[in-house]
C-alpha cells in the first residue's frame, strides 16, 4: 500500500471517528464529558487537517480548539453547572432545518469538483500566482504565510480586530480584575431568586 492510499484510510478513519464523537457530544448530558470530548474532537480534526496537507490550520486548530476552547469551556462550567438538566429532546424543526440544509449541500456536491481533483477551478485561477509570487515577490517559503500576511494581509488585520473585539467583549462582560468583581458582588443573586422579583436586571456590567 502506498503512502497516499494510507492517507486516504487515515482520512476516512478520522472522519468516522469525528462523526461518532459529534454524536456522542450530542447525546451526552454530562457537560464535563462533553468538554473532554470537544477537546478530542478538535484534536481529531487537527489530525485530519494534517492528513489534508493543511499544516498551518492544524496547528491553529490544535492550539485553539483543543487548548483554548477546552479551557474556556471548563472555565464556564466552573462558573455555571456541569450537567444538562433536561434530557435531550427530539426536535422536528431542527430536523427539518438540518435535512433541508444538508440536502442543499448534497445537491451542491454533485456539481463540485471531485475530491482531490488537481484540475479543480480553484487551483487554476488565483492560486498559481500565489505559489509563484511567494517565491519571487515575497521570498517566503510558507505560501500560507505569504498569503496570510501579504496578499490577504488585510483579512488578517480584520482577524486581529476580531480577536481584539473578543478580548474587549470579555473584559466588558466579565471584568478583568478582582476589584471589578468585588463591588459587583453586592448585587449577586443565587439561583433561588423568585421569578417575580421586582426589577429585573443583571445589575452587573
Amino acid at each position, binding site marked *: 500500500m502506498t503512502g497516499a492510499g494510507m492517507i486516504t484510510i487515515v482520512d476516512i478513519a478520522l472522519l468516522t471517528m469525528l462523526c461518532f464523537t459529534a454524536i456522542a457530544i450530542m447525546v451526552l448530558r454530562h457537560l464535563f464529558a462533553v468538554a473532554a470530548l470537544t477537546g478530542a474532537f478538535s484534536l481529531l480534526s487537527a489530525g485530519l487537517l494534517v492528513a489534508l496537507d493543511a*499544516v*498551518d490550520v*492544524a*496547528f*491553529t486548530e490544535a*492550539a*485553539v480548539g483543543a*487548548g*483554548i476552547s477546552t*479551557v*474556556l469551556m471548563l*472555565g*464556564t462550567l*466552573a*462558573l*455555571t*453547572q*456541569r*450537567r444538562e438538566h433536561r434530557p435531550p429532546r427530539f426536535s422536528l424543526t431542527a430536523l427539518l432545518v438540518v435535512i433541508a440544509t444538508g440536502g442543499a449541500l448534497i445537491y451542491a456536491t454533485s456539481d463540485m469538483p471531485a475530491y482531490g481533483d488537481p484540475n479543480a477551478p480553484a487551483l487554476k485561477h488565483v492560486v498559481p500566482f500565489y505559489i509563484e509570487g511567494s517565491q519571487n*515577490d*515575497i*521570498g*517566503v*517559503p*510558507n505560501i*500560507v*504565510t*505569504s498569503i*496570510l*500576511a*501579504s496578499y490577504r*494581509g*488585510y483579512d*488578517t*488585520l480584520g*482577524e*486581529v*480586530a476580531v*480577536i*481584539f473585539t*473578543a*478580548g*474587549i467583549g*470579555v*473584559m466588558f*462582560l*466579565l*471584568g*478583568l*480584575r*478582582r476589584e471589578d*468583581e468585588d463591588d459587583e*458582588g453586592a448585587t*449577586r443573586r*443565587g*439561583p433561588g431568586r423568585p421569578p417575580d422579583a421586582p426589577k429585573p436586571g443583571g445589575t452587573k456590567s
Partner: protein
Amino acid sequence: MNHHLVLRVVSKLLIPFILLFALYVQFHGDYGPGGGFQAGVLFASAFILYALIYGVDNAREVLPPKALRFLVPVGLIIYALTGFASIVMGGNYLDYDVLAHDPQHGQHLGILVIEFGVGTTVAAVMVTIFYAYAGRTRDVDDEDW
C-alpha cells in the same frame, strides 16, 4: 497545590521551553507551519499553565492586568500602523514593498512586524480571557454540581 510537587517542578521546567517554542513558532512562521497567531496562543498557554499551577493571583503578579490592558490594543495598533506607514512611504495600505529599499526585503520586514503585532494581541487577549474566567468567583450551588 502545595503538595503537587511533581507538577510544580515539571511546569517550572516546562514554561521556559514553551516560551522558547512560542518564539520559534513566531519567527519561524515564514519557513514552516506557524506564525503570529499560533505563537500568541502558545505564549498565552505558558501563562495559563502558570496560573493553573500557581493560582491566578500569582499569575497576576507576573503579568498584571494593567499590562494586559495595554498589550491587547498594542498588537492591533502595530498592525494598523504598519499599514499607515506604507501609505506614508508612498505605497498603498499594507504595501510592504515600500518599507525597505528592496521590495522583497520590505515584504520580509512587513510580515515580521505584523506577525509580531498579531502575536502580541492574541497572547494578551487569550490571557485576558483566562483571567476573566478564572478570576470570577464561583456562584454555583452544590446540587448543580
